[in-house]
């Protein structure tokens, strides 16, 4: 592997787009929570699109692994990957159970966590020999 950052399957346009989308949904949900609004169509659509982006990211990573590349810390990497794709569904289910401002707060909280997990995903791919 010549340059870790350039070869990383989880450090490209899709990862950046996922982070930005997640933060946008978080801000939208925060505004809704502050305005005493339950989760709206925008939040649920945002969660669905985010999930698709994260699944695509996971597929990219698995394709890279299939192509012979290996994450720096495999255990942590796969752990973060599985956690990551579970986050939007978790937010979706809890937000459906809680049709109040607190449902929006849950969407906001989960969408703030997702970008952190994407960054950890990138770090555990790049660290070699861990």
């Amino acid at each position, binding site marked *: 592997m010549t340059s870790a950052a350039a070869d990383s399957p989880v450090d490209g346009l899709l990862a950046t787009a996922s982070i930005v989308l997640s933060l946008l949904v978080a801000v939208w949900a925060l505004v809704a929570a502050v305005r*005493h*609004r*339950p989760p709206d169509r925008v939040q649920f659509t945002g969660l669905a699109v985010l999930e698709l982006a994260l699944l695509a990211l996971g597929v990219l990573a698995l394709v890279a692994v299939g192509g012979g590349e290996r994450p720096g810390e495999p*255990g*942590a990497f796969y*752990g973060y990957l599985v*956690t990551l794709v*579970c986050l939007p569904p*978790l*937010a979706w289910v*809890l937000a459906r*159970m*809680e*049709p*109040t*401002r*607190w*449902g929006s*707060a*849950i969407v906001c*909280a*989960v969408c703030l*966590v997702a970008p952190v997990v994407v960054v950890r995903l990138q770090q555990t791919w790049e660290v070699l020999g861990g």
Partner: protein
Amino acid sequence: MVETQPARRATNAGPGRLLIAVYLLFAIAATSRAGLQIATKFDEAPVAYLLSALAALIYIVAAVGLARAGHTGRRVALACCSVELVGVVAVGILSVVDKDLFPDETVWSQFGSGYGYIPLVLPVLGLFWLWRTRRDPA
């Protein structure tokens, strides 16, 4: 759609549901971390890793306690939040005073600074929420 104020004072509705969500996130984070550490490098820092596992267990039980609501659920949640608060403060102090005691990071090291100090805030919020909902008829 206008928010309706819940008449019941259950621990698993309204803000409580957000609290449960955050507890779930920490349960996942702590469990995976502890599991991985114990599975791959237990000999390096057994105390720290066992502590991570204990913290993970407490987050899971606290989330279940809050979600189950009712009398037993409240007691379980109360016990978990108390242990958590004592744990995060004790480990926080110890990890600052004597770094050799915890050679590897745990969820509670440095008062949970690696997790945005949320491990320190969470039990306080949990206890506050239990206190706010204390007139629960259940």
